[in-house]
């Protein structure tokens, strides 16, 4: 499919969804229009609001803060996930001992942890970053851990026979081999980093998209809530696109769809 055709399809799909939304919030197709409006607002209102966000410029400050938090959470979380994932995969004993504790930590509800993060990291961006990190870390960690274990044993033996030490094995074998696992997890984590940041803001902050959404929510301004979420979604596409750029560079060696099959 060519780039333009793909784009056309994507945009039509988006428009179709807008249309359905418009229809159900205008005519009583799916039940009470008033109720649907209360929960989902209407596309025209939302678009007008987004326009106002940008026209008045009030959104930039919030966007910027959320961006910083998301990027920090994403970078710190995935870096930690990668490093610890690699390390534990190479230290099976330590991994076995820590295993239940890692899984326990992964299951703690982050919403409950928020006050503790505020205590430790204050109300500034760092408590939100911490929240995002706890989400991103585990997703990346589990995937990197598995990715390292999936390294082809023959390639590994060969590399060791070539005289590679641990550091060189990491650089030449484990790292590239785990990359596709890692990137799969990074695509999930981008979203989760943003979720972490926004939820953190939602639970306590003075700025950021989460703050905007929360403010709108407590005055029952669903137009504001939905507009905030739309901005947020557009935003994640941007960050994900950056991840994809890096991915395509790093995974250039993989067979392409058109390449030979055997």
């Amino acid at each position, binding site marked *: 499919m060519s780039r333009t055709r793909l784009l056309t399809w994507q945009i039509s799909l988006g428009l179709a969804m807008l249309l359905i939304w418009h229809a159900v919030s205008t005519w009583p197709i799916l039940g009470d229009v008033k109720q649907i409006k209360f929960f989902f607002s209407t596309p025209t209102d939302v678009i007008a609001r987004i326009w106002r966000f940008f026209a008045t410029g009030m959104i930039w400050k919030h966007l910027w803060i959320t961006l910083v938090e998301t990027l920090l959470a994403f970078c710190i979380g995935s870096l930690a996930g990668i490093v610890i994932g690699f390390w534990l995969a190479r230290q099976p004993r330590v991994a076995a001992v820590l295993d239940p504790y890692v899984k326990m930590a992964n299951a703690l509800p982050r919403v409950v942890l928020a006050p503790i993060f505020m205590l430790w990291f204050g109300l500034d961006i760092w408590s939100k970053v911490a929240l995002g990190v706890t989400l991103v870390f585990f997703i990346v960690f589990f995937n990197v851990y598995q990715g390292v274990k999936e390294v082809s044993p023959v*390639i590994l033996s060969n590399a060791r026979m070539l005289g590679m030490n641990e550091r060189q094995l990491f650089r030449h074998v484990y790292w590239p081999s785990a990359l596709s696992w890692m990137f799969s997890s990074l695509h999930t984590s981008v979203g989760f980093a943003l979720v972490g940041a926004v939820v953190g803001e939602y639970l306590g902050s003075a700025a950021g998209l989460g703050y905007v959404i929360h403010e709108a929510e407590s005055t029952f301004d669903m137009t504001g809530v939905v507009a905030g979420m739309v901005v947020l979604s557009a935003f994640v596409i941007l960050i994900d696109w950056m991840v994809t750029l890096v991915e395509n560079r790093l995974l250039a060696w993989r067979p392409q769809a058109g390449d030979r099959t055997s």
Partner: protein
Amino acid sequence: MSAEAGGQAAIELTGVAVSFGAGQQIYRAVADVDLTVAPGEFVAIVGPTGCGKSTLLNVAAGLQAPSAGHAHVRGRAVSGIVAEAGYLFQADALMPWKTALANVAVALEVKGASKREAEERALAWLARVGLKTYVHRYPHQLSGGQKKRVALAQVLIRDPAILLMDEPFGPLDAQTRTLMGDLLLALWQADRKAVLFVTHDLDEAIALSDRVVVMSAGPSSHIIAEHRIDLPRPREIGDIRLDPRFHAFQSAIWRDLKAEVMRAYGDEFAGLKV
């Protein structure tokens, strides 16, 4: 006892046995193998398929711990990877994320060479194995024989003191095989590495080696015959076949091998005629 003797030999396996699996399902692949490769000696191993040739190479490389017996390399007991050995694996073992050039160059970089120097020498080596125009290809863009030659360059560029080669010329055409054999012999002649060479091509085994070792069929495979190939050196593989003794060796080894295969698999292959 083997410690002193080991002081002399490049590779020495004494009473080596290797078992796979555990309990009821245990499979004893090789047993009671005594094999010594003297420094500078070129030894070829032939044997029925699945007899344990690769397993022995793994033991010598330190990749597989024997379940009984001892392995010594240059007098030291093997435990873990044997650093002075180069191993050409039977299976594809190139790193798929590196080009042919990078795959070969990394073998030098690992030893501390600068990237530039490593790539220069890797280029020269890839030219020697006839892949000058394929240096920037990834493994999945190469044919079976091309991949094998990249792997060959990767092993040889490190100039290891001991060479373990598992069917290195298998997927090459007859003519290229001769060229590669000559290349290997020239290298070997120059500084007399110890070579342990697995092949299914008896002509190749005879043409290259000082000694051909024949293994029995598994399970509990062991060495059933040794043939010292005292043809004159230096040899040209193309010409050595003209030596009258060549055919005597050939039929002697062939006889050993055929008897062994028929003995072991005679009944297994019973249903062979369709």
